[in-house]
């Protein structure tokens, strides 16, 4: 749109800008408060990479609304994935549980994009090894459809009908210096096979 080379425009079509992401997260934060009856026993766990800053933002938002300090952590699912053998071994993310753990809590898993549902399945397995939450819920910024497992999100920032050939990338200021959700053209099969670093950008 603008003359200067824009990093977002280079990736494809921006479907959510910073302001829209902010509004979506505000709504999700309210919904979490509503569904968890005030958020007393809630724990937010972000799935690396981009689920973690999203979880922190939601926790900050909930803190603003209700003067409530919601415990917030991260849950790496790499070692529980079922598609490890489809790509070269990848670096691990950080798992950090908040003080108090997850036993008996309402855990809200937070991720950027919900796609096949395999990441969430791995997260449920990883969570089982860490404790026994009372309830587990799922919050995602973008639901792009094409589920391969019987999994759905409890809180969705935006439903984004896509083709499986397209890529959806979530950019967040904490990681990418800018906030945006971008739909890009299909990656070619060669890139797909090597599963390179490009796939880390919010491919769920």
């Amino acid at each position, binding site marked *: 749109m603008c003359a200067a080379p824009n990093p977002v425009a280079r990736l494809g079509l921006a479907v959510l800008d910073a302001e829209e992401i902010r509004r979506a997260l505000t709504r999700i934060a309210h919904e979490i408060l509503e569904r968890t009856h005030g958020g007393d026993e809630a724990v937010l766990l972000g799935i690396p990479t981009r689920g973690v800053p999203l979880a922190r933002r939601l926790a900050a938002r909930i803190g603003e609304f209700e003067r409530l300090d919601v415990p917030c952590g991260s849950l*790496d699912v790499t*070692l*529980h994935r079922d598609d*490890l*053998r*489809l*790509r*070269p*071994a*990848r*670096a*691990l*993310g*950080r*798992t950090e549980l908040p003080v108090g753990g997850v036993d008996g809590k309402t855990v809200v898993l937070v991720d950027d994009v919900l796609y096949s549902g395999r990441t969430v399945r791995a997260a449920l*397995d990883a969570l089982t*090894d*860490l404790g026994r939450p009372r309830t587990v819920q799922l919050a995602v910024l973008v639901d792009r459809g094409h589920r391969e497992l019987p999994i759905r999100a409890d809180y969705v920032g935006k439903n984004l009908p896509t083709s499986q050939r397209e890529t959806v990338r979530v950019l967040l200021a904490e990681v990418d210096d800018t906030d945006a959700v971008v739909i890009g053209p299909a990656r070619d099969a060669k890139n797909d*096979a090597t*599963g390179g670093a490009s796939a880390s950008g919010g491919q769920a």
Partner: protein
Amino acid sequence: MKRHLISAADLSRDDALLILDTAEELGRIADRPIKKLPTLRGRTVVNLFFEDSTRTRISFEAAAKRLSADVINFSAKGSSVAKGESLKDTALTLEAMGADAVVIRHGASGAAHRLAGWVRGSVVNAGDGTHEHPTQALLDAVTIRRRLRGPGQDGRGLDGVRVTIVGDVLHSRVARSNVLLLSTLGAQVTLAAPPTLLPLAVGSWPCSVSYDLDSELPKSDVVMMLRVQRERMNDSYFPSVREYSRRYGLDATRMALLPEHAIVMHPGPMNRGVEIAADVADSPRSTIVEQVANGVTVRMAVLYLLLGGAELPGVSQ
């Protein structure tokens, strides 16, 4: 990462840092009530040990089991090897049983390298003769980084750390792997040993050499004591054990020469009273127990990075 881990020289700085960082993450899992991960479910790891070893074998076994791999232990004593089977035939047998990784400890230098040419799975060198023991060097690097630099060092090397390796360098695969790996990571390595216990080619190694331990200690952040390998001592490399320990053994007086922050390492098993005095081995500066704990997580990291992903294109037949 390559498909095998034979030598510390095979690791680029990025490879080494990936292993170190992965080990740090896996180390956090060791504090959890449930330590098992499903990552290598259905894969088979064979521990092929032609030499006696307790800690290395148990360490690899624990690492593989925590990642849910099936472990088969094969020790030369009481096996077909005692009946005269060659390494190649043993390798072909393992191949037929479908081993995804073979961890080999062998008395001959180069055994792991030969084995890598015969089996389809990954080969991890757990010590070959007087050649190399790369996972020991990796666990030492993890220990040094955490003790000297603290947690949260992901992606950072050991630039500027001064490491002095003391003792029987000639017979030590630990020393060779450490010199290669630590210099790759940016550390400055000095070998302190009697001339008879230094290999001829030491001039070509990326390190400096000294015959005087006392002058090196005040400039060391890390001092790594090597075991005097009496089982490999066919010649008299020094006049007597007492004389060796007077000149190159680490006792409390020598430890006092070290800077305040410096740490004392030993790959084990120790000869207390020979290369290291008991009160030094048990002092808070000693990292010997941490080294053992880090050994499991480093080996988990190596097995995960070698076996956890897809087979690299082009390397399998």
